[in-house]
């Protein structure tokens, strides 16, 4: 117990640094994937057949392969095959490559949720807009979009909570997020070696973070209730 109390501040400091990286990846992914997902959703709903075919192929590839493999390919492929390591070896390059992989992957999942949300808005809403003489873009932004947002909050919450945990996959390209930081104490780091508990301790960080997110997303869902 005494040893634990001695190790705790060192471990917590190190895990905090790792968790900051986890959160950074989480927010960057959301900021990138929210708009990109919408663009992909429009692409796959396009009446221009080659475009919708092309987008659906991309969605199929990104949803059909493990994110871990995507990370490995996006990070190592430029250097291995094109002989031009565009990301570089440093921590910032690894973060950038991880961000790109996560944004692309999550945008594809989001796009399907958006598509469901848009297509779920009754056709009568659009027709009413047309009768009132609104343009297509007016109809989308003033009529469809808000109703879509209300519909997609529950499935989006699901994806967002999964994303918090999925960030741990980025350790495969040596991005030093919280699991990496926890695992370091097993082998030895900062005078602590052979300690297994820091790795399990990381679960508390995820749990607290997801608890807060669940509350926030629940509140958002309530706020959007008036559309009913």
């Amino acid at each position, binding site marked *: 117990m005494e040893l634990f109390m001695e190790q705790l501040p060192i471990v917590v400091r190190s895990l905090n640094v790792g968790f900051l990286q986890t959160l950074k990846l989480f927010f960057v992914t959301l900021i990138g994937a929210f708009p990109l997902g919408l663009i992909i959703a429009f692409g796959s709903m396009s009446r221009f057949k080659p475009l919708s075919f092309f987008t659906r192929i991309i969605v199929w590839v990104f949803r059909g392969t493990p994110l871990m493999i995507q990370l490995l390919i996006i990070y*190592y492929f430029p250097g*291995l095959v094109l002989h*031009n390591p565009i*990301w570089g*070896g440093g921590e910032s390059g690894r973060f950038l490559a991880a961000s790109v992989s996560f944004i692309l992957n999550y945008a594809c999942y989001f796009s399907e949720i958006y598509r469901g949300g848009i297509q779920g808005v009754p056709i009568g809403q659009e027709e009413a807009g047309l009768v009132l003489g609104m343009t297509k873009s007016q109809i989308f932004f003033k009529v469809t979009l808000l109703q879509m947002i209300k519909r997609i909050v529950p499935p989006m919450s699901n994806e967002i909570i999964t994303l918090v945990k999925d960030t741990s996959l980025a350790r495969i390209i040596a991005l030093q997020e919280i699991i990496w930081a926890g695992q370091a104490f097993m082998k030895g780091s*900062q005078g602590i070696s052979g300690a297994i508990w820091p790795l399990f301790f990381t679960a508390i960080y995820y749990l607290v973070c997801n608890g807060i997110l669940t509350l926030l997303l629940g509140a958002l869902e309530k706020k959007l209730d008036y559309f009913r």
Partner: protein
Amino acid sequence: MKKKLIALLVSAAMLSLTLCSGVLAEDSESDLAYVQEKGTLVVGITNFEPMDYLDENGEWIGFDADMAKAFAESLGVDVEFVEIDWDNKILELDGKTIDCVWNGMTLTDEVTSAMECSNAYCKNAQIVVIPATVSTDYQSADDLADLSFAAEAGSAGEAVLNDLGLNVTPVKAQTDALMEVSAGTSDAAVIDSLMAAAMVGEGTSYEDLTTSIELSSEEYGVGFRKGSDLAEELNKFFEESFQSGETMKVAETYGLQLAVIGDDAEAETESETEALTE
């Protein structure tokens, strides 16, 4: 409509081709030139005391880290240390995200077949420690059969004793193994030679013990991309640094002076390659 579509597809294909050729860099024939051109030697490491580890200021130090800094300086480039996933070290090298693996890497078959390795620069061994009074009776592995050994549980020393079918008592730490011998509860101990050098013999806490035969040994080397000319460059650097006494100075800082391999080993490998070319 169809014509438009074909035109679109063709232009898309052209665009992607030009993009590809844009990012496809010329493969420079020399790795040395490549590193000097970009101005940084990226060194792949893990946190491994006393080879590469962080000091209080968050700077990488250690025997390997200090030698890597000196080597980069001799090439006229900066050094950048990057923590990697040890399982992905070959991927990192070939993907050019790092330029070398310099982290107390044991020269195993896996490593030497996938990387261009430098000469061994450091050595670690599992070594038998016995009371000095009886050491002359035990000069070969065959003499050990009737001894009882103490070794750290899960260590390489325990593994090699089990392989030899010898009688082992697993203890909690290497220091406990020494205590067992000192107290006479075990006849001998097997610990690693780096530790033995620091703890056994005259002027140490175990003056009545001595080191005897080596049961297994491993050598450390630096790995570069397959076919890289940097390995040869590093061998030259090691030789110069050893002769000027610089290597020993760094080794003493980290207590590795007995593990460093200098001239002799290089002469050995040279004669080996000579024999091969003949």
